[in-house]
C-alpha cells in the first residue's frame, strides 16, 4: 500500500493562560480524503483547525504537511471557512472573491475567471456586482465558501459549513463538496449535522475536552460499537421471549408497532431471527447499526437520549 499521508496532527497541545484548549489531539488525513472532525462546543476543534492553518502555534506536538512543518507557502494551498463568518459588507461579491483569490497567490486573469466560475456554481450571478451586505445570510455564506475555495486549495477546512443554510443551499454545498472531493481536494469538515457528515466523510476523529475520543472510518467506528439495536415487528409480546435468551439483551422504549432491543454486537443475528420466527410471525427484522450521532454521543460521554 503506497498511501501518502498529507496532513499529520501529532499530539498537539494549546493553552491560553490557564485554560487548556487542546490537551492531546492526533490524527492523520490522507491525500484526497474527506475527514470529519467532531466534538462538542469547546472540545478544541477550532483551536486544532487554527493550529493546522498556522494561525496559532501549538504549545506542544506538531502539525506536518507532507512530512514537514507547515510553511507559509503551504498555507497558500489551504482554504478555510471559519465558524465565525465574516465578510466585507461594502465590498462587491465578485471583488470579495477575487480579493481572497489574490491573497492566496492567484493572479489576473485567472482569479477573475475562477471567481466567475464560483459565482455561477453557487447561483450568485444576480448578486455578483452588489455589495455583500445586500445579500441574505445564506447567500453571504455561499460567498464565503467561494472565498475559501476560489484558489483551488489542496486542503479545504470547513468549520460548520451548513449552519444557517436552508435545505436547498445545504444540498448545493454537499454537491459542491462532493465535486471537490472527486477532483482530489482534501476536506476537513466540522459540523453538528451528523447525517451530512455521514454522507460526505470517509473518516472521522471525535474529540472532547481537548483530546481524542474515537477515530476511524464509519465502519470501523461501528464495528467497535459494543451493541446493536434489533427492531422487530409486529410488537407481539410473544416475541420478547427469544430476546430473553440473548445474554446482555435489554428492551428499549420502542416506537409504536415495533419492539426495540439492544443486544451485544457479537450476537448471532441469523439464529436470533430463526428463534423469533419460531415463536410468532415476524414482518420486520432489522439489526440497526449505530448512527454517527450515537457513536459521537457515546464517545464524548453524553448519555443517550
Amino acid at each position: 500500500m503506497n498511501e501518502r499521508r498529507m496532513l499529520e496532527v501529532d499530539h498537539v497541545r494549546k493553552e491560553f493562560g490557564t485554560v487548556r484548549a487542546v490537551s492531546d489531539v492526533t490524527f492523520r488525513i490522507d491525500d484526497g480524503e474527506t475527514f470529519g472532525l467532531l466534538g462538542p462546543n469547546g472540545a478544541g476543534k477550532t483551536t486544532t483547525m487554527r493550529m493546522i492553518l498556522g494561525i496559532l502555534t501549538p504549545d506542544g506536538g506538531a502539525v506536518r504537511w507532507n512530512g514537514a512543518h507547515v510553511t507559509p507557502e503551504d498555507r497558500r494551498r489551504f482554504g478555510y471557512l471559519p465558524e465565525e463568518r465574516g465578510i466585507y459588507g461594502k465590498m462587491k461579491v465578485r471583488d470579495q472573491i477575487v480579493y481572497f483569490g489574490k491573497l492566496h497567490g492567484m493572479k489576473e486573469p485567472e482569479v477573475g475567471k475562477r471567481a466567475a466560475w464560483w459565482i455561477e456554481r453557487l447561483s450568485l450571478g444576480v448578486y455578483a456586482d452588489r455589495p455583500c451586505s445586500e445579500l441574505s445570510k445564506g447567500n453571504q455564506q455561499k460567498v464565503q465558501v467561494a472565498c475559501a475555495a476560489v484558489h483551488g486549495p489542496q486542503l479545504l477546512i470547513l468549520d460548520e459549513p451548513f449552519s444557517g443554510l436552508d435545505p436547498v443551499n445545504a444540498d448545493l454545498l454537499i454537491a459542491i463538496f462532493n465535486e471537490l472531493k472527486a477532483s482530489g481536494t482534501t476536506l476537513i469538515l466540522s459540523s453538528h449535522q451528523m447525517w451530512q457528515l455521514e454522507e460526505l466523510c470517509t473518516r472521522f476523529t471525535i474529540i472532547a475536552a481537548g483530546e481524542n475520543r474515537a477515530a476511524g472510518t464509519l465502519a470501523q467506528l461501528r464495528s467497535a460499537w459494543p451493541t446493536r439495536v434489533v427492531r422487530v415487528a409486529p410488537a407481539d409480546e410473544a416475541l420478547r421471549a427469544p430476546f430473553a435468551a440473548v445474554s446482555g439483551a435489554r428492551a428499549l422504549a420502542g416506537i409504536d408497532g415495533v419492539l426495540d432491543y439492544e443486544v451485544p454486537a457479537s450476537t448471532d443475528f441469523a439464529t436470533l431471527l430463526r428463534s423469533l420466527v419460531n415463536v410468532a410471525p415476524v414482518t420486520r427484522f432489522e439489526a440497526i447499526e449505530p448512527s454517527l450521532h450515537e457513536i459521537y454521543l457515546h464517545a464524548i460521554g453524553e448519555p443517550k437520549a
Partner: protein
Amino acid sequence: MINDFATVFVVEFIRRVTSRPFIISIVIGMLAVSLFSFMPLLVSQAFSGPSNIALVGDPHLLARAKPLLAHDYTIQAELPPQTITAASLKAHHVSSAFVLTATNGRLALAIYAHDPSSIDTGAIARSLAPLALQNALHRSPSEISALSAVPVTVKTLNAKFANASDAMAARGIAYALLLFLYMLILINSQLVGTSVAEEKTSRIAESLIAAIDPAALLAGKIISSTAIALLQMAAWIAAIVASSAVAASALGSPGGSDAAAASSSTMLFSLSGIGTFITPEIAVAFFLFLLIGLLQVSTVYAGFASLINTTEDMSNVARPFLIVVVAAFFIAFTALGVPNAPFVVISSFVPFLAPFVMFSRIAVANVPLWQVGLSLAINLIALYAIAIGAGKVYRVGMLMYGRPPKLAQVLNVLRS
C-alpha cells in the same frame, strides 16, 4: 510576503479612497483650506466699507490731513464745512465723515459714522498727531516729521530669521503646518483603527489571517493609510495653491480695493508667503515626521482596534492614547514660542511626541543637526518596537472575542 502586502495595500487603498468618509473628508478639507486662502479677500471685503470716508472742513486743513489718513482710509470725497446727515454719507458712498476743525491752533476731529464701533479713535489720533503739532507749534510738516520720527529696530537673537516680522510670519506658517500634521496623523490613524475594528467585528479577520501573514495584513493596512494621508495632503496643497492663485488674482483685479490688495501682499497664506517661509528643510522635516508620526500612531491604533469587540469600544480603548497625541500637539504648540525650553527639547526625542515637537522646533529655530538625527534614530527604533508589539497584540487580539483583555494580559502578549 511582498505580494501579500501589495495585494492588501491595493485593496485597502481602493476601499478607502472610494469610501464615503474619505471623499467627504477630502472635499471638506479642500473647502476648508480654500476658505483659508480666500480669507484675506473676504476680510478685506468685509472691512472695505468702513475704510471709505469723506473729509469735511477747510480745504487747506484737509490738504494737510489727507496724506496722514490715506494709509488707513480711502478718501472718497473732500467737502467744505457743512452739516452731516445720514443722507449725505449715502450720497457720497461713504461709511463715515471726518469733520476737521482748527480753533486757536487746536485741531479737533468729529466723526459721523453709521457704525461708531468700527472707528479706531486712538489710531486716528495717532495718525493726525503730526498735524496737531504743526498747528500748535507752527512748524513745517517736514520739521514735524523729522522731530517725531523714532527709528525702531528689532534685533533677533534667533539666527534663523532676519527680523521679528519674519519670525512671526514663520511661526504662523509653522502653526498651520503643525495643525496640518496633527490632522493628517490623527484622522488617518483613526481610520486604520476603524478598518481593523471593522474586520474584527465583522469576523472576517480569521479568514484573512488564515490566508496571509498577519504582519503583511497589518503592514498593508498601515502603509495604505500612509499613502492615503499623502494623497490627502497633496489634495489639500493643490486646493491651497489653486485657491491662493484665484484669491490673489481677485485681490489684484480692478474689483478688489487697493487696501485689500496691499494687505494681501503681507498675508501669511498667500503663495509667496508659503514659498518664502516653507524652506526645503522644513518641507523635508514635515514629510519625515509626518511619515514617522503616522506609522507610530496608526500602528498603535491598529493594535488597540484588534482588542475591541464592537466599534463603539474603540473610543474607550484608545482614549488614553489619544490624550498622549493631543498632549504632543500642545507641547508642539508651546514649542513654537519656546523651541529650546528644556521640556520641549526632551519631548522632541520622545516617541509619539517627537513627530510633532521636533517638527515645531525645526520650523521656528535652528535645531542642532545631532538633535534631529538622534530624534529620528530614537523614533525609528521606537517605530520598529511598536510594530513588533502591535503585531503581537494584533495577531492575538484579532482572534480574541468576549471581554476585552486586561492590561496584564496585553503585557503578557507583548512579553511573549
